[in-house]
């Protein structure tokens, strides 16, 4: 069994894993990071989105062995010191979640979107989150939340909050 060394949410893990083990199952079943859920079996829904070296990936479509030597951030790794990240707060303030199941992936995908475009228009947010399905919100409040967080994160001195 291959051995991997991976940093997840600031902690380094070393594990022997089956080559076929999906990253999402490594996170959930091995590390207990169940904040990242599974919503489909065809890579469409994006509920499992995490950041790998800062870039969003659907962790159901990445093997754990492919994360060897990488830095993975899940929703559980946001908000240093028990606080919350501006993106998390914006989702709360704009009522951008209901059942909460797409929320972790949606938040992580949104962070990647802002990495590429710090001040997205409404259309750009919609396009940027096309890979993340939500069944509850009809998306509108998610778009508002991402733009609200973007505004807050653009303020001088706020860069340190991005993962």
């Amino acid at each position: 069994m291959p051995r991997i060394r991976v940093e997840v949410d600031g902690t380094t893990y070393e594990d022997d894993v089956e080559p076929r083990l999906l990253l999402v199952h490594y996170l959930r079943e091995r590390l207990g990071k169940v904040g990242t859920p599974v919503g489909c079996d065809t890579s469409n829904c994006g509920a499992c989105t995490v950041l790998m070296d800062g870039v969003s990936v659907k962790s159901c479509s990445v093997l754990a062995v492919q994360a060897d030597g990488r830095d993975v951030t899940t929703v559980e790794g946001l908000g240093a010191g028990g606080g919350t990240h501006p993106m998390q707060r914006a989702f709360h303030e704009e009522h951008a979640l209901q059942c909460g199941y797409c929320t972790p992936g949606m938040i992580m995908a949104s962070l990647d979107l802002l990495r590429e475009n710090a001040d997205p228009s409404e259309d750009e947010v919609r396009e940027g989150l096309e890979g993340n399905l939500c069944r509850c919100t009809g998306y509108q409040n998610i778009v508002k939340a991402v733009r609200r967080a973007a505004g807050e994160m653009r303020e001088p001195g706020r860069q340190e909050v991005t993962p």
Partner: protein
Amino acid sequence: MSGNGQHGFGRVPRKEDARFIRGQGNYVDDIKLPGMLYGAVLRSPHAHARLVSVDTAAAEAHPQVRAVITGETLAGLDLAWMPTLSGDVQAVLATDKVRFQGQEVAFVVADSHYAARDALELIDVDYEALPPVIDARTALDDGAPVIRDDLEGRGDNHIFDWEAGDAAATDRVFDGAEVVVAQDVLYPRVHPAPLETCGIVADMDKVTGKLTVHTTTQAPHAHRTVYALVAGLPEHKIRVVSPDIGGGFGNKVGIYPGYVCAIVGSIVTGRPVKWMEDRSENLMTTSFARDYHMRGEIAATRDGRVRGLRVTVLADHGAFNGTAQPTKFPAGFFHVFTGSYDIEAAHCAVTGVYTNKAPGGVAYACSFRITEAAYLVERMMDMLAAELDLDPAELRLRNLLRAEQFPYSTATGWEYDSGDYPRTLRKALDIAGYDKLRAEQADRRERGELMGIGISFFTEAVGAGPRKHMDILGLGMADGAELRVHPTGKAVLRISVQTQGQGHETTFAQIVAHELGIPVDDVEVVHGDTDQTPFGLGTYGSRSTPVSGAATAVVARKVRERARIVAGAMLEAAPGDLEWTPGRWTVRGDPSSGATMQEIAMAAHGSLELPDGVEGHLDATTVYNPPNLTYPFGAYIAVVDVDPGTGKVAVRRFVAVDDCGVRINPMIVEGQVHGGLADGVGMALMQVMAFDEDGNHLGASFMDYLLPTSMECPSWELGETVTPSPHHPLGAKGVGESATVGSPAAIVNAVVDALAPYGVRHADMPLTPANVWRVIQGRPFRTDLAIP
């Protein structure tokens, strides 16, 4: 106090969010118990086949497999079949035949989720294929294969006939009508597809004899009772826990074979067993929605006065009648199909048939078939408007019920509680700028562009229901509530309904806060655990606010009255001399002399001498049996652009004015509406559960079963009017399903309106680009393909 949000109604931010935004929710698949094993289901590749043999030897020899359960195993326990919510039976694991593709054949329990899947590949099943029935319209043909030969005396695929309304009076109206328009209207089979699939962790404790299940259920108490009836376990030895649920949308009302298999797996192995289905399993085998083949007829005068409606429905229920609805209503509440109009006579006749497909029917925010009813009448109204060459808004304004007609008894027996329909439609027309839109449309038509405007005005019927008429498997649809105020004035509310994202932990706390004048944050809402909560029927049919919300108001008022007696003892005043200001009982005429709820709570638990018959403490229970349903309504307007070259439809604008009476939390109501409108976009434009002639499911993954993304949804434009329900303690009506019920018709009406230059009068959903292009080309429409 109310209005600022902290002491009651208003835009109170959600309590639930704190855990969800941090990935700290607790969904079924997050649960890990010591020694827990993993289950997986082997499924039929055939739609209809005789089961010749199931060879599990190789799977059982797998080093990580702990049990393999077959139909034969279950038959030995008398569990091979289970009752459905419609009084039929459904195979848990097939014993004689398989009756739909994806049906459960065997269940493997293994040390890991990967090993369980591996072992499925080692099971060898021998099938003898049988001809399937796929098209419901052929199910009753002479010589059609009989799907349910398990049922004694059943020689065909007929399930039920049901009718409502006065057939003779309706026929008389039609015989004398100046104008009659008729149309076949299909509401295609779709699926609610909650983002979290169905699953369970079953834990049979052999020492205590107690079964605990953590499961995706919208109705935990009903599940407990059904498990007791099915498994023969005593009800007090069954605990059903519904933790955080990642969306339900009606998918998680019934009991699925996988749940029963996991319970049996735990009994057999003595260890907890988790079963969590994949998306493809969810789409193929759990409760579908709709699948109504409707023939609608509308009768009117030449000047646009609607007089009669007549509908026949062929309902495709799949292989087992598992439809979830009140026992006396095999077609749900379809007979609200007269909608929002004053119609003198109406009749509907519904025939249910078996086909070789998964069971279901009632799901996906349908309010028990009102989606179908609302869609039918709103399509027929538009066809009538086209026939009469009348503007569809004008036709509706001529026929909408007026405020002074409420309470209004419909021709099919409903008593609508309240409404002011013309006001709501006018508001929507104003927001949309309707006249300008029509002018713009005329301009665009001149230039050969296809723009459409579609209206839907719907009346919902939610809050099942009065237990004299409404029960699920004999369980009356009343709901309990328990409220306990602690010595320091903090409260715990226990309710029988089960949120799947609708915000109950926040809004039910708001109701208590509103009634008792204590902060929302001081109220904890407990739900979803049958050991901890009072009995009730769960959350579906938008019934939480009408039934459990009412129960919460009633129980809080009981506590407030008890507090009045305690305050009287504290203040040495007769309780009748006290008056209530939010949070405080004061002596009438002496506002300085009073006691707050917090002071009263402490006194109620303290050494204060209480009047005879008052036990002390500050709590109450209630059971709320609603006198009627609530009837929210709304006016929706869609504006679409259609590309004539590709058939692609873009929803440019969507205006939704909803009236659900008093709004407990407007922020949450709006979020519910947004979500339902997205459902409407999905159903109208892209979703269908398609089958080929062999019964292969062609829409069994998100590759083919398309859900709207952020790109297909416009920015919703909402409005509201407030017409309280007179019989509800808070004046509140349900609303969660309104947008799913009301929006598909608006979009389809808009697309048909856009296609008017081609002489199009009707087109069925889904209006995919290929289908719209076919309509434009005059080619036959296809609803039989996932991506036509």
